[in-house]
C-alpha cells in the first residue's frame, strides 16, 4: 500500500518525483512571494521567492518550524490568502489536456473552477471549522452543487464512494452533525470532501496535528490508500518530520519564507546537506532503539520584519562564517547524478553530514 517496497526499491511515484522527471510538471512555481500588509503602510514578506515543481502523482512534504511560511505558501498557491495578503511571481498549472493556467492571473469563475476541480486544500485545523448546523450530507451536496451539475443521486454515490475510501460508513456518517464525529472522523470527512471533484493536486495543511496517535495512523494509512487509488499529487505541510518520512516522495525544507533544501525523501533524511535540515533531523526522537542522542538548534526563527543579513539561518548555524553574513545563498543542485535532484541553499553544504552516533548499548539495561 505504500509507494516503497520493503526492499527499498522505489515505485513509479518516486521515480516521477525527480527534477525533469516524467513529463511536464503539474505545478510549476517560480519566484513565488507572499506579502502581508501589517498596518501603517508596513509589509512583511512571509514567502520570499520559492521555485518548485510538482510532478504528476508526486507527494511533496513541506517541513519547517512554526512561522516559516508553510501555510502562507499553501494558501497563496490556491489564491486563498486573507485580504491583507498578496501573492506574486508565477504559478503555472498544467491541465491534463495540455492547457496551461496562470494561477495568479485567474479570477471570478475561472478561479472558482480551478479550486476544488484542479486543486483542493484541507486547511490547518479545519476539522474544527465545519458549519455546526449542517449535516455531513449537506456539506457534501453544497460542495458538489457549487461546482458541478451533478444530480442528487450522483452526489450521494460519489460521496459514499469517497467516505468508504477513507474508511467511514456513509450510511452512518452522512446523517451526522459535525460535532457527533470524533476529530479523526471529521478529518477523514474533510479529505473525502476535498476529493469530491477529483482534483489533480491536494494540499493538506497539518493533516494529523492535534490528533491522537492511533487516529493519526489511520489518517496516514488512508492517505496512502487514496493516493494509490486516485493518483493525485499531494503537497502536505507538516512540522512533523516523521510524517514526511512516511508520506513523502520528496521533501522541501522551508526556513524564514524560503526553501533551503529540496530532494528525494531518502536524500533528505539520510544525506541532508543544509544545516537547518540536519538540525531538524537531529532534534526528532525516534521511537525504536535505545536512548537517542539528540541536539537542539539554538535560538529561534528570526522575525520577518528583521531578517538577518546574508543567510537567514546564520545566527543559529554552527557552520556559519563571515561569508554567510554577506549574501543569501541560492538554492543550487548538489548532485549531478542523472535522475536525481537535490538542491541546497548553503555555501558550506559540502561540510554538512549527518553522522548519527552509535547508540550506547548499556543504556538499554537501565531500569
Amino acid at each position, binding site marked *: 500500500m505504500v509507494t516503497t517496497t520493503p526492499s527499498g526499491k522505489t515505485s513509479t511515484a518516486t521515480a516521477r518525483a525527480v527534477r525533469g522527471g516524467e513529463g511536464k510538471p503539474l505545478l510549476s512555481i517560480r519566484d513565488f512571494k507572499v506579502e502581508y500588509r501589517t498596518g501603517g503602510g508596513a509589509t512583511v514578506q512571509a514567502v520570499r521567492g520559492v521555485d518548485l515543481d510538482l510532478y504528476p502523482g508526486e507527494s511533496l512534504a513541506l517541513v519547517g518550524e512554526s512561522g516559516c511560511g508553510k501555510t502562507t505558501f499553501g494558501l497563496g498557491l490556491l489564491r486563498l490568502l486573507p485580504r491583507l495578503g498578496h501573492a506574486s511571481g508565477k504559478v503555472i498549472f498544467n491541465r491534463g489536456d495540455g492547457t496551461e493556467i496562470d494561477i495568479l492571473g485567474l479570477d471570478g469563475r475561472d478561479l472558482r473552477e480551478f479550486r476544488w476541480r484542479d486543486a483542493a486544500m484541507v486547511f490547518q485545523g479545519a476539522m474544527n471549522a465545519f458549519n455546526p448546523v449542517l449535516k455531513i450530507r449537506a456539506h457534501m451536496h453544497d460542495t458538489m452543487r457549487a461546482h458541478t451539475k451533478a444530480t442528487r443521486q450522483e452526489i450521494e454515490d460519489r460521496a459514499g464512494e469517497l467516505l468508504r475510501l477513507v474508511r467511514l460508513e456513509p450510511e452512518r456518517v452522512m446523517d451526522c452533525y459535525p460535532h457527533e464525529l470524533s476529530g479523526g472522523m471529521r478529518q477523514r470527512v474533510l479529505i473525502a470532501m476535498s476529493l469530491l471533484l477529483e482534483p489533480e493536486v491536494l494540499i493538506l495543511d497539518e493533516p494529523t496535528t492535534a490528533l491522537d496517535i492511533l487516529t*493519526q495512523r489511520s489518517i496516514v494509512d488512508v492517505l496512502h490508500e487514496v493516493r494509490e487509488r486516485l493518483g493525485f499529487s499531494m503537497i502536505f505541510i507538516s512540522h512533523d518530520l516523521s510524517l514526511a518520512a512516511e508520506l513523502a516522495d520528496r521533501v522541501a525544507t522551508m526556513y524564514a519564507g524560503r526553501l533551503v533544501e529540496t530532494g528525494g525523501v531518502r536524500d533528505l533524511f539520510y544525506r541532508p546537506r543544509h544545516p537547518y535540515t540536519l538540525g531538524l533531523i537531529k532534534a526528532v526522537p525516534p521511537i525504536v532503539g535505545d536512548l537517542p542522542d539528540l541536539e537542539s538548534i539554538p535560538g529561534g526563527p528570526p522575525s520577518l520584519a528583521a531578517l538577518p543579513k546574508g543567510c537567514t539561518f546564520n545566527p543559529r548555524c554552527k557552520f556559519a562564517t563571515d561569508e554567510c553574513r554577506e549574501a543569501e545563498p541560492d538554492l543550487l543542485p548538489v548532485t549531478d547524478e542523472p535522475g536525481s535532484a537535490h538542491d541546497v541553499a548553503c555555501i558550506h553544504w559540502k561540510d554538512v553530514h549527518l553522522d548519527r552516533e552509535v547508540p550506547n548499548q548499556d543504556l538499554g539495561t537501565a*531500569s
Partner: protein
Amino acid sequence: MSALEKTPETTAESRTPLMTLAGVSQVFDTKAGPIRAVDNIDLSVNPGEVLCLVGESGSGKTTAARMAAGLARPTDGKVEFAGNDIWSMNRSDFGRFRRGVQYVHQDPYASLNPTRTILQTITAPLLKHRVVKGNKAAADKAAELLTKVDLTPPENYLPKFPHQLSGGQRQRVSVARALTLDPKLIIADESTSMLDVSIRISVLAMLGRLRDDLGVGFLFITHDLAIAKYFGWNGKTAVMYLGRIVEFGPTPKIINAPTHPYTRALIDAIPEPDPDLTKTKGRESLRSLEIPSLAHLPSGCSFHPRCPLFEDGLCDGEVPQLVEIRPGQSAACHVVARDGAGEVRPDEPVA
C-alpha cells in the same frame, strides 16, 4: 549554572516516595451520567525520579495530575506527599505540600499573566512566600532562576512581557516560576507539546538538568511516547487508557518491549523519522478505530472492542488487573496474563 547547584536528596529520604497515589479515582457528573475519568490508579514518584504518564486524549492524564498536585480532591483513594495524606494535613503542612509540588501547564501562552513583566511574574511568589526579603534580593533571585532555565543573560528577559517572548522562552519562564519555591516535584503536563522540535529538545535538556542536578522529581505527562522515551529513559512509564493504567514498567521496556496490546498499538502507530524504517515497520490493525465513551465503558477490558488479541468470553467479562508480566513490568490484559507477552520482537534490544 554550577554555582546554583545543590546536593541531591539524601538516600534516607529517597526511600519514602515523594508522591503516592493509592487507589485513586475521580468521578465527574456529566449530562451523560457519572464518568470515571480516573479509575483506581496507583502511582508513586521517588525524589529525583521521572514517572511518565502517557496515553491518548481523554485517558485521564490531566485529571490524575491535578489530583497529584492537590488541585482536585479524589472521589476515592489517597494522595500522599512524603508519606502523609494531603487531604488530612493541617494548613501549614498543606501549604508546604503545595509549595513542594509545582504544576507546569501545557500552554505557555495562557499560563503567564500578560500584564506582568517576567520580573514581576517571578518575584511575586518569592515575596509572597518570603523566600527572600526585599525587591533587590527578589530581583537577584529571579535572575538566578532565569539562568537556571537558560534564559541568559537574565537582564534581557526580566523587563519583557510574555508576548515579547517566543513559545520556548515562555515555557522556560513558566518553569522558572515553578522553581521559585524550591519544589521537590514538578508536574509537567504536556509542557513541551506546543513547542517546535528544535526548541522542545532544549527545554527537555533544561528540565533534565533540574532532575539530575537539583534532584527534582517529575510527573511527566505527554501523549508523545517518543518524548516520554527521551525524557523518562531512566525512570518509569505508566500507560493510561480510558482512566485506567494498562501497562507500567521501566521506560525502556515500555518503549522497546511493550506487552499490552494497546501499548503495542501505540508504539507501532508512531511514524519514525526514517523513511525506510517507517515504511517497513510492522503494524497490526485494530479491530475498531473508535474510542469508546467513558459514559458507556465496554464491559471487562475497556480496550476489548479494538483489541487484536480479543477473546470472546474472556476479555469482555472481568476488568483485568495489573499483573507482573516480566520482572518490573506489569500489564492489565487477560490474554497477556495467561499467555505471557510472547517473543521479544527482533528489533528490540533486550532491556
